[in-house]
């Protein structure tokens, strides 16, 4: 009998896993709660530059290969010992292997006042509709203070708030109101970026863009009525418009046994094999696991490739590679690191911006037909491996 593989979630991690496995004759089923897949970085462009949300959404059914079964439904429980998955509507699915790729759960209740803030203004994390709501406020802003902040130092795509600040500043400048609107970027880190190497590269760019940076500011509570954000470190900022990145938790499902998760609910895996501790038939890829690397689409994609190769019998190992883009007006830089190598110095350049444009352009195709892009991505990741360009790029 062909092996039945269940893939939970149709983000980059789930889609790459499912579409690659389908090529090798497995009986693959994807379970996904939404009808559409959202290219999450697109929320930045929707929220801060007014791009239409449709540009960044595709029906999930168009992103899976024809031989993949797609089940529309919400996962309620995964029982690793019994090898069963139960959906919210009561359906039960059995598996021979399971790949959990449910992403991170955004917790808007962790910080008092946060849910009122996001309902009022929207943000660039919760979904395309919230990003559009944010734009409707931001595009009308002509004076005051825009605050971009985070509720916790752990969130997906570490450069996301920096990108937000750059894009916001650009829009304000184009609209000719940059002088009357101040952009305050409040970060929970010691420097402008978790890695000091990267901080030194972005700091002058932020100054150039006229972004005011406040470090060691972790949002603790929000007074949505009086428009004040308080930090855990004991400071406060008054805002006219604000977007706060929510606290990230592991997926909001019941996972048995409970020991399979860490304190924040992320699924505990071996960081090289992405196997769930204690189970050789269960994997967790992408944002939902606790691998000590950045939570990014690239990481999810590369992790999915490793899991598929391991299922095929190869001894592949994930090296924790990240490639988070930071874009300014016409240039880009990448945060490049692996488990063994902290971020290397990567200067801003036009070429990197073109590479980033190419990555974005290939996004949909690389999810549906990852096998076609693998050789290209592999060559890029090898050419830019920290051990090769360690001194900088």
């Amino acid at each position: 009998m062909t092996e039945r593989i269940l893939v939970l979630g149709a983000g980059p991690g789930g889609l790459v896993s499912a579409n690659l496995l389908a090529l090798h004759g497995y009986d693959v089923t994807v379970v996904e709660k939404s009808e559409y897949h959202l290219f999450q970085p697109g929320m930045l462009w929707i929220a801060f530059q007014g791009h239409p949300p449709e540009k960044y959404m595709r029906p999930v059914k168009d992103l899976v290969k024809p031989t993949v079964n797609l089940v529309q439904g919400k996962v309620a429980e995964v029982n690793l010992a019994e090898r069963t998955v139960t959906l919210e509507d009561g359906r039960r699915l059995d598996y021979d292997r399971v790949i959990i790729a449910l992403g991170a759960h955004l917790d808007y209740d962790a910080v008092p006042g946060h849910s009122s803030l996001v309902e009022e203004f929207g943000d660039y994390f919760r979904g395309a509709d919230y990003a559009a709501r944010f734009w409707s406020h931001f595009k009308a802003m002509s004076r005051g203070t825009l605050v971009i902040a985070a509720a916790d130092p752990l969130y997906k795509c570490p450069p996301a708030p920096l990108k937000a600040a750059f894009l916001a500043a650009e829009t304000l400048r184009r609209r000719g109101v940059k002088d009357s609107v101040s952009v305050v970027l409040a970060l929970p880190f010691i420097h402008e970026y978790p890695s000091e190497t990267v901080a030194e590269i972005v700091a002058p760019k932020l100054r150039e863009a006229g972004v005011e940076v406040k470090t060691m500011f972790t949002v603790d509570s929000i007074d949505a009525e009086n428009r004040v954000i308080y930090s855990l470190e004991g400071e406060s900022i008054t805002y006219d418009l604000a977007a706060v990145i929510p606290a990230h938790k592991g997926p909001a499902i019941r996972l048995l046994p409970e020991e399979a998760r860490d304190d924040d609910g992320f699924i505990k895996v071996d960081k090289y094999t992405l196997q769930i501790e204690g189970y050789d038939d269960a994997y967790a890829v992408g944002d939902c696991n606790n691998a000590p690397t950045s939570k990014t689409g690239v990481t999810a994609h590369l992790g999915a490739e490793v899991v598929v190769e391991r299922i095929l019998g190869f001894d592949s190992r994930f090296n924790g590679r990240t490639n988070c883009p930071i874009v300014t007006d016409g240039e880009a830089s990448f945060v490049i690191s692996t488990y063994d190598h902290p971020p290397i110095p990567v200067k801003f350049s036009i070429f990197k911006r073109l590479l980033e444009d190419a990555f974005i352009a290939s996004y949909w195709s690389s999810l549906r037909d990852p096998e076609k892009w693998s050789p290209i991505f592999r060559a890029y990741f090898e050419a830019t491996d920290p051990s090769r360009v360690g001194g900088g790029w």
Partner: protein
Amino acid sequence: MAERDELMEVIDKLGQPEVREALVKAVDLLANLERSGLLDLLIALTDEDVVKRIVQLVMTTGTMKLADNLPELLDKLGAIAATLAEPAEPLGITGLLESLKDPAVARGLSRLVTVLRALGGD
């Protein structure tokens, strides 16, 4: 039903004059490529294995660094090319030593040594 809608969308597009014009031009372009034999070459270039080989050739640490510094490199090359049009005086050893007093020359020499180091290393 959905497929019919998608088909109608395409037909609607064909109604737009600029789409029709573009299509006619694209067909001409294809015919030209076919006559010159270039179309066969292009088709071969999109073969998966060929793509793989091209990527192996182009995506290396060296090319990544080269492409990244292309604007600065072209600037320098352009500046050097412009000096070629000017007449050059023969320069003796004393003249060489003398010109080292010019900080720009001294910096250039330091760069040359860096280049030599890169050339000699593995």
